[in-house]
């Protein structure tokens, strides 16, 4: 992560723009998204529901709803072909059939929010984990069976062999999500996309699942995209963070940059709105209002109606991505050199200082 030269790009999303036809009009759900994911790294996409984070990854894996259209952009995916050479393809121009045959599940796997709906209730979990291997690699049944047991053990399920014959309803929520993880990893994918993998689970199980994904990532070197609205989860897992609002990325950077040096007022709001365990204030900070309706064209900065630091220009022109450091970018006019100097809210500043102080020298040592 420290050495930028050795970072190998696995997935590059460029200028992606997606709209949906609905009965009430065209919804411009994604309005120009740029993202890069490098090998072995974890990218977290944060945002409210409706900000377009799920739609972005659905486009990556080619499962957009039927009424969705990609208006522009490209998604370049780099992978090792079976014969050893490195191939880069545009996933958007790939026919759906090829996508299903060569990409989905095999090279890019996805974990969905609700483990009950992503497992087939009529199949044993063993059969579901073996399915991918049997289909993509034509693995002999006995070998696939052995591998499935290994995967279940890797996912932290005890008595894996006995569990192979269980059906999803016989397992608890946390166990089901472990099965989903095992089946996602069955074909050794290059990218694992986790769409709110722990939202439906309890905190204690959440901690275990996140830890599990991290260990697997360490051992196999896969790249992971997390979609979440929980900043605590982001802090735990992410190397890089992208904050989305109304179909655009408003700020991106390393986890340290986003948490300790946020620049966009929306990121300030998100960080302040989260009750941390040290907050003693009697009121939580709130971002007023609700996200804009993307049915209507959004003039200027989409966040400006909810932004108490909004400038006049925010209503007229969309801010470009301002560069803060090699990895840190934010789209807000506040960063323009002509803009008045605006500091983040005092409470947030105090919280960041508190967070930095919480980093004991011992932990610092361990991290290094």
């Amino acid at each position, binding site marked *: 992560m420290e050495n930028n030269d050795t970072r190998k790009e696995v997935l590059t999303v460029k200028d992606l723009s997606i709209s949906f036809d609905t009965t009430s009009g065209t919804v411009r759900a994604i309005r120009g998204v740029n993202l890069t994911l490098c090998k072995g790294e974890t990218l977290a996409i944060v945002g*409210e*529901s409706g900000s377009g984070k799920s739609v972005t990854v659905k486009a990556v894996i080619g499962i957009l709803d039927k009424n969705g259209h990609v208006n522009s952009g490209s998604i370049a995916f780099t992978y090792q072909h079976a014969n050893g050479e490195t191939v880069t393809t545009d996933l958007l121009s790939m026919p759906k059939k090829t996508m299903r045959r060569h990409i989905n599940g095999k090279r890019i796997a996805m974990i969905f929010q609700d483990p009950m709906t992503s497992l087939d209730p009529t199949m044993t979990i063993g059969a579901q984990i073996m399915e991918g291997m049997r289909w993509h690699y034509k693995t002999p049944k006995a070998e696939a069976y052995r591998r499935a047991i290994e995967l279940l053990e890797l996912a932290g399920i005890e008595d894996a062999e006995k569990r192979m014959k269980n059906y999803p309803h016989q397992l608890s*929520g946390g166990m089901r999500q472990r099965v989903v993880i095992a089946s996602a990893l069955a074909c050794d994918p290059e990218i694992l996309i986790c769409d709110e993998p722990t939202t439906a689970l*309890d*905190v*204690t*199980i*959440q*901690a*275990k699942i*996140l*830890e599990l994904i991290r260990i697997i990532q360490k051992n196999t070197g896969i790249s992971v995209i997390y979609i979440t*609205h*929980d*900043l*605590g*989860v*982001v*802090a*735990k897992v*992410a190397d890089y963070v992208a904050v989305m609002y109304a179909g655009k990325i408003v700020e991106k950077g390393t*986890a*340290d940059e986003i*948490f300790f040096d946020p620049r966009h007022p929306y990121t300030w*709001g*998100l*960080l302040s*709105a*989260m*009750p*941390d*365990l040290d*907050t003693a204030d*009697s*009121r*939580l*900070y*709130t*971002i*007023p209002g*609700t996200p804009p309706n993307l049915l209507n064209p959004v003039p200027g900065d989409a966040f400006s109606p909810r932004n108490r630091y909004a400038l006049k220009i925010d209503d007229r022109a969309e801010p470009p991505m301002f560069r803060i450091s090699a990895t840190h970018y934010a789209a807000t006019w506040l960063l323009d050199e002509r803009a008045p100097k605006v500091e983040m809210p005092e409470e947030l500043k105090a919280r960041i200082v508190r*967070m*930095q102080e*919480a*980093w*004991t020298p011992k*932990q*610092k040592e*361990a*991290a290094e």
Partner: protein
Amino acid sequence: METKKEAEPLLEIKGLKQYFKISRGYTVRAVDGVSFRIYPGETYGLVGESGSGKSTIGRSVIRLYTPTEGQIKFHGADISGSLDSKASSLLHTEIQMIFQDPMACLNPRKRVQDIIAQGLDIHHLYKDRAERSQKVAEMLEKVGLAPEHAERYPHQFSGGQRQRVGIARALIMQPKLIIADECVSALDVSIQAQVVNLMKDLQQETGCAYLFIAHDLSMVKYISDRIGVLHLGHLVETGTTEEIFQHPVHPYTRSLLSAIPHPNPRTERTRAAEEYDYKSAGVNYHAGTEHFLEGTHTVLATDEELRRWLASPPLSL
């Protein structure tokens, strides 16, 4: 706190048991002997993992279930056995509930004004139509919606607004106790803060008490005066928010607290959560009795367990 303790409890639950008989040989003991009190105007937070029985308690209190055993006293009146008409009308007006999923709990075929006024309709709490719509309009304003929203249908609102309608429906009966069952967990982070702030403001204004059921501990910490930690149908630890968060004693509470992810990328990456497994920890909830520590802090434990837990090092959060 001190004055509240001397005051008469608004809700007193003693040894509540709620069993569900699934088949002849199998009974789920969802709630297995839980006792706690809620005082007027305070917020009592119930936390625990799914299946710990926290929602069941809420539903037993408002009598969506008939309790198997135990006593629920509201304002000194027993509301756990069979209800006479007086007790039942007390129960249905003075206790209200806010549900988790704001879309599922509002009738999609009714206008918002009819949803909010349904309680008034049933209990004949207005003289004429004008008074009814005036009451609805006042309530909408109180929860941060506009009076003209009364004519709309639930699907025309966003999630946060729908939850406001749910709160308005509960508040219009001027209840003494509101049971909020995971009422913000379906909402977005920024909207959660709005709704929780609203609930706090309304509590100051109306003086109602909340039974706040949630699994998000940081939110529970923020809103609650006192907290009860549930596990497998047993109330393992209860106390004021400070007592629970500063000096957690029960290993389950400790594992819950340490599992909360902190929004701090530096410390979070190396921090490991404390683990707790009921089977391997060798704790027997049935053998435990309530041990009083200090203030309002009590722990479910046997003498030996308590000694061991008190000796363990304090939790670093």
